[in-house]
């Protein structure tokens, strides 16, 4: 009786197309590109501020005021909300299990707490930025 186990090849570049679960994971992971983009936009903003003159800063603001950037920011906001923020909150309870006495705190409670904290943080940032 000879053994000859067969190893099924797994594509290193297209494995995520195999099912919906994997595809959604990849859509979530590419939000890291958005994080990097906005980090460097923030650094560019700091560079403009460091120059010390209102003209430099206003030029930076003006660089965002065109159709392409408007669409970019709008799409980025939606995509980021759905595939980063909301996903992150959904996964947070897994990393931080809480137990009161014998009973685990329901993950729904932890998720809800995240949303409440997020709304508060967003409102504070908007208020500091003078949105209202």
């Amino acid at each position: 009786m000879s053994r000859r186990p067969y190893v099924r090849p797994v594509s290193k570049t297209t494995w995520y197309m195999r099912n919906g679960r994997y595809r959604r994971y990849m859509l979530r992971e590419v939000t890291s590109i958005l994080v990097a983009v906005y980090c460097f936009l923030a650094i560019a903003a700091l560079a403009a501020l460091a120059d010390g003159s209102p003209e430099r800063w206003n030029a930076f603001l003006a660089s965002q005021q065109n159709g392409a950037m408007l669409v970019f920011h709008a799409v980025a906001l939606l995509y980021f909300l759905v595939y980063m923020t909301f996903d992150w909150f959904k996964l947070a309870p897994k990393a931080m299990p809480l137990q009161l006495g014998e009973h685990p705190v329901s993950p729904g409670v932890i998720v809800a707490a995240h949303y409440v904290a997020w709304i508060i943080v967003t409102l504070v940032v908007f208020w500091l930025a003078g949105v209202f």
Partner: protein
Amino acid sequence: MSKRQLELEVMRYDPEQDEVPRFQTYSVPCENDWAILDALNYVKENIDTTLSYRWSCHMMVCGSCGMMVNGEPSLTCKTFIRDLPDKVRIEPLAHFPIERDLVVVLDDPVEKLYRSKLYIIRKDDPPPPDTEYKQSRAALHKFKQYTMCINCMCCYAACPQYGLDPEFIGPAVLALAHRYNLDSRDQGKSDRLDILADHEGVWNCSFVGACSEVCPKSVDPAAAIQQMKVEGALEWWKQKLPGGKS
């Protein structure tokens, strides 16, 4: 009881004759309350006795009958035909070498189970034989869900990181290690973390979460792994502080 005719497309592989696996289709008259395992047993008993596959308890406690059913890693005794279409594709558990037909080689995760110190470790002297370790219900509840693992390896079949890097220790072993780390009777967390927070350990996990979605016993290995990452990160700093080992 009415019957349903199912068409099973089953992957076959004879190591003595086949170069590559092939599919063979069987038409099976099924009772409506059957699980896919019953359909496979029907094939073996009535149509093709050469079909090889593992199964045992038929009640979701032994972990033997894990297979891919229409692309999903499942226990075939827990996958009911009432939840399936008429055409069902059955393949051996993904990410494992095929021994024969639907039987896979599980040496890799078994080896990892052995070397991961999955037992209570005490650092103090053993107590006299007439004393027991006391554990409250609250302490038991902390780790109870992770004791439910039946080693069916469906999580390994679901995990894409294991598919890409078989050196990855994998979901079940990590969940079981977490079970011991959370056990109040255990004192071996550092020893285990040294093995499991190593290069091929928890850090290979990118939290796809597929393991927890397919686990037939709701062990939630993904949660165990994320919690171990937190522990691993903290333990790294603890070991760097004076007093910790380095």
